[in-house]
């Protein structure tokens, strides 16, 4: 899995490309932690190119959400694909990790 980020006007967009599994989950956690340490506490994780997520990946997203909130901000997810949506719903975590159709919409009403 590959990660990249771009700082926008009111948030930082993190793109995750590949499978978010037990191998890549710690790397996402580390990547987002570094983005937060760099001064961005409003994070959008763009999952458009994340075709697969398991419970390890979900745990990493929750860890990143907690880190963003501890820094006074928030983390939202965008462009969720069908398998990721299925995992979010089956674990009822769709109520905790708010999903938006696009990264641009995630913080547009704040």
């Amino acid at each position, binding site marked *: 899995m590959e990660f990249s980020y771009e700082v926008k006007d009111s948030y930082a967009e993190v793109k995750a490309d590949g499978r978010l*599994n*037990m191998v890549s989950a710690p790397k996402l956690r580390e990547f987002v932690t570094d983005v937060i340490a760099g001064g961005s506490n409003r994070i959008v994780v763009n999952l458009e190119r994340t075709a*697969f997520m*398991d*419970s390890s990946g*979900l745990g990493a997203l929750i860890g990143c959400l907690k880190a963003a909130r501890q820094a006074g901000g928030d983390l939202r997810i965008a462009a969720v694909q069908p*398998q990721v949506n299925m995992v979010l719903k089956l674990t*009822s975590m769709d*109520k*905790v990790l708010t999903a938006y159709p696009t990264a641009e919409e995630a913080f547009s009403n704040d």
Partner: protein
Amino acid sequence: MTEVLASRSFRGPAAGDAIEAVHNDLDSLWLDVPFVSDMDQMTFTTAVIESASNIVQHAQPAGPRDVELGVETVVRPHLLQARVSAYNAKPPYGPLDACIPGEDAESGRGLALIEALVTTVTFERQDGTNTWVLTRTSSQD
């Protein structure tokens, strides 16, 4: 026993690379049986990867040999089955029943997720090998 339409088999050291290899095996398996619905492919792949990851993360060696992961996946008419094994492993420690952790927990959802994704989950232990057998009835055309 009904006809085997497609199958894949993996065995190797229980490490992160094995998870990627098993996932690649599953992706190629579905190419052989395109009549299996996207939903069945998606749910079964998720359950198998969860189960295999559980072994890589938690299985403890029973002796001097390292734990190996084995995954045998078989597609039969209207049935998907996977045998996910931890070789050279101690019996699993802790509860085998799924529970739902709090919403801020960063782990502990794997077993509940597996149970939600498949029709049956059974556990066998024989000759130092722990095997989880996952089945899902499949709505094939």
